[in-house]
């Protein structure tokens, strides 16, 4: 589904209820917000954690169906690690999927700062052969600091979508396919994203029918 088709469906739904017009600028803004919300949902919303059970209803990579939904934004990358063991985050970095050594495909485990001392001093799994990494504010910190490179699979922020347009003689926006940017997600997922967009539109227009419709799709599926 192109972004033009997506936009057209949204406009049909909004116009069906005569709930108003969604300008291209607003559409682009809300479409990107909606797909960010979709990624956050598939990554596991910690607000759903229960007492003594830190797991949401839908958690990251819970099964192959959920993981498959996120694969369009799971990228591989080779990190360059400096002599202090530091590597800056990728520009579109959201969260790590897996981390590997560059040679031998040995896993590199994520460690939280409070437990760093016990990992560094471990004799059963010395860090020389069982490397680890921390998450810092600007990047990853690896131990030992001589890894030089590491392979990372990570969830990235989805590329920004845009319904690009040119103005016709009457000043009306006309779809520009060349400069538009489509969603990277599968067509079946675009309806979930659409539901989120409509919910935001419903809030924006204070249109209960739009919000209700969107919530039905979100909770019950299409």
């Amino acid at each position, binding site marked *: 589904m192109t972004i033009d088709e997506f936009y057209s469906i949204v406009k049909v739904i909004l116009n069906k209820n005569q709930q108003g017009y969604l300008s291209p600028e607003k559409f682009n803004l809300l479409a990107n917000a909606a797909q960010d919300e979709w990624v956050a949902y598939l990554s596991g919303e910690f607000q759903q954690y229960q007492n003594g059970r830190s797991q949401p209803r839908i958690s990251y990579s819970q099964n192959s169906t959920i993981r498959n939904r996120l694969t369009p934004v799971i990228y591989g990358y080779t990190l360059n690690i400096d002599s202090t063991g530091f590597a800056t985050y990728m520009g579109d970095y959201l969260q790590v999927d897996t981390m590997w050594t560059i040679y031998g495909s040995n896993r590199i485990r994520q460690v939280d*700062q*409070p437990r760093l001392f016990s990992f560094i001093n471990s004799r*059963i799994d010395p860090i020389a052969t*069982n490397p680890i990494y921390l998450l810092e504010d600007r990047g990853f910190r690896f131990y030992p600091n001589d890894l030089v490179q590491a392979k990372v699979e990570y969830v990235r922020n989805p590329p920004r979508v845009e319904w690009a347009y040119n103005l016709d003689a009457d000043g009306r926006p006309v779809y520009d396919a060349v400069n538009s940017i489509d969603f990277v997600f599968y067509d079946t997922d675009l309806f979930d994203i659409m539901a989120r967009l409509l919910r935001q539109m419903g809030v924006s227009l204070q249109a209960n029918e739009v919000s209700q419709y969107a919530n039905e799709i979100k909770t019950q599926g299409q």
Partner: protein
Amino acid sequence: MDRYTYIERTLRQIYGGQPSQDSEITINLVNTWLNDAVAIAAKQNYKENLQIEGIGYLNNSFYTTFKGIAITQDENFVYKATLPEIPLGIGRNEAISNLRFKNSLNNISYDGIPQSIAQTGYARGQRAIPNKIEYSPQGEFVLIYTPIIMTQYTMQVTMVSGGDSTDLDSTINIPSDYFPVIVEYIKAQLAFEKAQPQDVNNDGRDNK
């Protein structure tokens, strides 16, 4: 079965499938429990043999021969070598079947004569036994009492051992009928670890 295969099987049992990237029970950790488990299996074999046949002994399958162990001088007429692992507390011979010495021409001596701790004091005042070398295992060391200059020899020892714990491709040195013993022991230890609540709050206090 080699160590790595056994450990992988154990991990898959603990994790209900292939362990994930986040798993904290590692191969090295299970490997550290394996030697303890082999010792328990050996002890059970000893007890069962005693019950069934009235003779306390360990089956051959539990034994491993280690070769090329260096000997250093400790005191005058006392030499020291480091055993691959601390001998088990089984039987009068500490689960050491034999201990021999080899020279540079690959000639192997007759077995050394073991001394218990109670005997070392008494034997100190005795004349050395001709053509025999006496030794006493103490912890991970073996003390060798002889006027012969032993540093020119290497030692080889046959003792109860689970095999080479530093080589994950080495075979676990116990017979198959005792595998359930080590399985149950290791499973209990790892399940205990997994059941413990983790301190996820970095609040300056330990979990209670």
